[in-house]
């Protein structure tokens, strides 16, 4: 009955999750995260399974590796062009992690195998149910886990290649208000919850041009995360409940392909610098669609334009070996946003991001390394709208992500 535009701005949106560690922020390896997310050219450790599978066969031996991050992004909305209204997202912490095991099968083997389990998306944005954009988004939570068995082959001293198969699974939870108020003035509520999965590949080549200079190329395919039989539940005033039947839904979220080229250079025996250029195929994220099994005049399938553009990001960092046991690293990145300024929804707030990062690794005993990093991301004030919902405002994002990790060489 009400032209609710119910899901016009729904929200499996990628970029809000980028806090939580999409490939754009590269929260998959400690050293790489500390170096601005760069790392396609240099096989730092077994997390190269993610950054460049081609590096796996060049490791010294089998390594087990785990890390954990604390992600709690802050987003603020302010009314534009003038006004007194502003709103901050509720504080919420999520903990993306990564585990890798792998390396050359035996010493001097040309073959390396391994498996990585990592969480490239895993975050939540919670605006709450009393802010002005609640009919567009109250909260979104996405968790995902990628499992990537990987094989790598060292063709010669110069070139190694690798390939991983990615199986991705995850879940999504979306809450938004429905503009139908009950007798007490409370909004209706929609909750969408579903499991998603998809497959992809991760391919890489690493080239050791000289003892000092290395190159890397990696291609991570797009992963089309499909949701089937998600649960859509509605809580609305009894008199309109039949307009909002609880139903199942299907949807899909095309995660973009990522093509990365990079180089690393050993400036001195103790000091390595590296840089990556990252091409992200965001253009596949044209719209977000929800198909409900039961449709009513109030509950229509939705088609929500996103109109993302492809992006090119730059990452740079350095690693300095202070002494045998202690290394420090630092770096930065510039991630341009794939979103257009009139298609930025509060469930997918994004802007050009500047990232600064640092970290340290320490070897308390032989074979064991502990790692800690800090990653700071910020955006400038960005004035945007989400045109389909006529939600206009300025946003800013800040995020400080600490992480710890440990690795063990067998």
């Amino acid at each position, binding site marked *: 009955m009400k032209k609710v535009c119910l899901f016009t701005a729904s929200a499996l949106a990628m970029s809000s999750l980028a806090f939580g560690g999409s490939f754009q922020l590269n929260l998959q390896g400690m050293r790489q995260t500390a170096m601005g997310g760069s790392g396609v050219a240099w096989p730092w450790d077994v997390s190269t399974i993610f950054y460049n599978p081609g590096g796996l066969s060049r490791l010294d031996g089998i390594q087990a590796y785990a890390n954990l991050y604390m992600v709690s992004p802050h987003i603020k909305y302010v009314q534009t062009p003038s006004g007194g209204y502003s709103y901050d997202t509720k504080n919420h912490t999520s903990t993306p992690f990564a585990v890798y095991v792998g390396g050359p099968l035996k010493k001097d083997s040309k073959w390396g195998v391994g498996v990585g389990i990592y969480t490239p998306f895993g975050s939540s944005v919670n605006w709450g149910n009393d802010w002005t*954009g609640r009919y567009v988004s109250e909260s979104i939570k996405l968790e995902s886990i990628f499992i990537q068995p990987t094989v790598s082959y060292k063709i010669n001293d110069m070139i190694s290649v690798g390939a991983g198969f990615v199986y991705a699974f995850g879940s999504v939870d979306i809450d938004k208000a429905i503009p139908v108020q009950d007798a007490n003035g409370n909004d209706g509520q929609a909750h969408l919850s579903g499991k998603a999965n998809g497959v992809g590949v991760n391919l890489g080549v690493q080239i050791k041009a000289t003892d000092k200079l290395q190159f890397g190329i990696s291609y991570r395919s797009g992963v089309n995360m499909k949701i089937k039989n998600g649960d859509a539940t509605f809580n609305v005033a009894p008199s309109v409940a039949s307009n909002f039947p609880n139903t199942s839904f299907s949807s899909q979220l095309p995660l973009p392909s990522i093509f990365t080229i990079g180089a690393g250079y050993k400036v001195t025996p103790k000091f390595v610098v590296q840089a990556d250029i990252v091409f992200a195929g965001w253009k596949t994220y044209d719209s977000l669609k929800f198909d409900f099994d039961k449709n009513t005049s109030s509950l229509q399938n939705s088609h929500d334009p996103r109109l993302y553009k492809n992006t090119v990001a730059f990452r740079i960092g350095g690693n300095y070996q202070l002494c045998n046991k202690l290394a420090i690293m630092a770096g930065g990145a510039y991630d341009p946003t794939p979103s257009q300024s009139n298609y930025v929804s509060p469930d997918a707030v994004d802007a050009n991001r500047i990232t600064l990062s640092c970290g340290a690794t320490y070897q308390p005993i032989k074979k064991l390394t502990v790692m800690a990093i800090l990653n700071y991301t910020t955006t400038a004030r960005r004035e945007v709208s989400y045109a389909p919902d006529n939600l206009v405002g300025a946003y800013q994002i800040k995020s400080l992500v600490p992480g710890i990790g440990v690795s063990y060489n067998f």
Partner: protein
Amino acid sequence: MKKTYIAAIAALSTLAACKPNIESQLPTKGTADFTTYVSVGNSLTAGYSDGTLYRNGQLNSYPSMLAGQFKMVGGGDFKQPLLPGNAGWPTLKRVLGYSTGCDGVTSLGPVFYSGTLDTAGSITNISAQGPFNNVGVPGIRCIDYTTAGYAYGALVLGGVGYAYRFYSSPTTEKPLDEATKLNPTFFTMWLGANDVLGYATNGGEGNGTGGTLPTDISPVTAFQSVYETVVSTMVANGAKGVLINIPDVTSIPFFTTVPAKGLALTRQGQADSLNAAYAPLGFKFSVGANYFVIQDATAPGGMRQIKSGEYILLTIPQDSIKCAGWGSLKPIPRKYVLDATEVANVQAATTSFNNIIKTSADAHGLAYVDANAYMKTLQSGITFNGVTFTPTFVSGGAFSLDGVHLTPRGYALIANEIIRVINQKYQSTISTVDVNKYSGLLFP
């Protein structure tokens, strides 16, 4: 070292640098002075909603919303002649509820609120609390605005004491006197709708080309003269302001909800018997949607089928259609119909009055809100922060349950349109109202 590192991280996490620090731009007043704001108008200005006036409706009037935004640019307090209760006065408000028709079908629709009428204290004169910033009076016309003793006259004529209860000298005063008491520095004026609406909501039974009864269309010359007097008086001390024109009333749900082609026949037998009965007059019926039969004194037999572009009023007794054969076996009485001639009268008057308003705004250098054009954009939907409003009755969210006046959210949309025009005219940057902060219709 790891421990201290983590401690350092914890400390860092609480740093202000980790929180976004953008702020919204402060609104500015531009070339206008909002210190003392007075709103002139009728029921729309008073905050009338759901078929009556009640306290929450007044608190959510568009002038009250505007005053809230003006406060950020130096505006003062905004006093309204609030009623004591929330049930409605002098009639109960409508709420959405269930009612069972003569056909035994129970449906959701507007019903009278079940509470007790706000009689106690409502008629008490509260002028001692005034003067009031919101002098909107339900029912008042432009041509009433210079009538001495209007408030008393309205009361004894069988009207409602809306003016009587807050005018300081209701027996002698002109409405204009009440509007200028605070010597406003800024005013909004949305006056004139009742100079045509009363005719329309009574099915065009009054004088459609110029009369002074509430059911007539006001004479254009009288309208022009009074309107000009009111505006000149309001700006006499240098006040700036906004003149708001009259929406085309034939686009509101009061006229558009009951469709002209609303006679639904489900069986061929029904169509056959109607065709037989009306054979002499040549009316045609078939299974499906048919045009209602209406009274028309100028037609053969005193009746005809309604045409597209003619309207049936929301106030038509639905049970008479369902069970008493109105519109099929019997013609719908003409007081429930706005026929083509009457629609033309309404639209001609609206155009004339709006020309007068526009001319006056230009002559006095005042801002001009084309509410008529704005309400037309509502036809295709106006979206605010994820909610789309349309003029559709009940489900559209903008119109209240009387089909004429707005919901608080509908009033907030108008407030934002007024702000947009003020900002344009006076180079101010007053911020818009958060429409979603207010209520739409409440569903049981």
